[in-house]
């Protein structure tokens, strides 16, 4: 047992210990929405239409997909993660793709989104 574990046992930290992470996480969400001035309605119709287009080319796993706004350094981005179940190919419908790909640029936080929705 490490000394720190022993200390933890003697003086357990209170249950609210990691509340700062919670605060930051909640703020990231709320600021994204505050900044974007995009209504939930608008988001859902955008989601629907984008899915329509993507579905023409690939089979998207709707249950696993993520779609929403995210914030980084005063730039709000639309983040979409659409796991692909199968690529639709004309003439060869049966080939399965194992890729669970990020369909948009800007899906991960490291590469900047092609076009931020709104920039303050």
């Amino acid at each position, binding site marked *: 047992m490490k000394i720190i574990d022993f200390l933890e046992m003697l003086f357990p930290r209170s249950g609210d210990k990691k509340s*700062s992470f919670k605060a930051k996480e909640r*703020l990231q969400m709320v600021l994204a929405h505050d*900044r974007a001035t995009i209504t939930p309605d608008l988001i859902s119709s955008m989601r629907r239409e984008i899915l329509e287009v993507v579905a023409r080319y690939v089979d998207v796993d709707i249950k696993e997909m993520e779609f929403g706004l995210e914030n980084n350094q005063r730039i709000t981005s639309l983040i979409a993660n659409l796991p692909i179940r199968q690529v639709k190919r004309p003439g060869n419908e049966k080939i399965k793709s194992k890729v669970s790909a990020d369909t948009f640029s800007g899906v991960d936080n490291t590469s900047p989104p092609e076009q931020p929705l709104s920039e303050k």
Partner: protein
Amino acid sequence: MSRIIVITSGKGGVGKTTVTSNLGAAIANLGRKVALVDADFGLRNLDLLLGLEERVVYTALDVLAGECRLAQALVKDKRLNGLVLLPAAQNRNKESVEPEQMKTIITALAKGYDYIIVDSPAGIELGFRNSIVAAKEALIVTTPEIAAVRDADRVIGLLEAEGVSKINLIVNRIKPHMIEENKMMSVEDVLELLGVPLIGVIPDNEAVIVSTNKGEPLILGDPGSLPALAFKNIAQRLEGEKVPFLNFASDQGNILTKLRRIFGG
């Protein structure tokens, strides 16, 4: 060229007036001519924090009404050469001042002072608009709390929309022992969320309250204290000097956090 800086936050009670008075005193202490403008009409407090309340004769409203000249309304701080206060009216309707009038007064003040620092009221209504109308720069005051950070973000957006592009952040009321236990967002967290440059960090400290009790800015009463140093550093950064940020962690926190730090908790 004088610098017109608004101190604002969105959320109330996070330390705007505390920052205005102490930063104003710290800049004057560096030998600059500083005019502090109380834009919190109806709820003025800047005179109290500076200990100048008994010497207020005229207010900005009297100047606008033509009842006195601007110079007559300015209260000179006898302890600090170059520091003056333009008081807000306390008794009259706060809706009685318009942004254009505020702009006229501040522009006139700018002729005689190096710094015009405007203490904004809480909120984003008329009083806020009055306080930012002439500003070229803004210092956003926030605490590491969720509502304060959200409101700060809102105000930053409004300032950017008004063309105030030089915006810096002051994080006030930092409690190092809470941050160490992850019970409070760190300065880095707040910075990452808000995405504007940091210009100052101020600890949550009893000396701040003691200094307001006495009506004596920290730089005069307790210049060696940590918060006094924090304000002095902000003043120097405004002057363009590179001053490292204070690290409050080393000598604070309870015995347990210290032990955790030692044993890598």
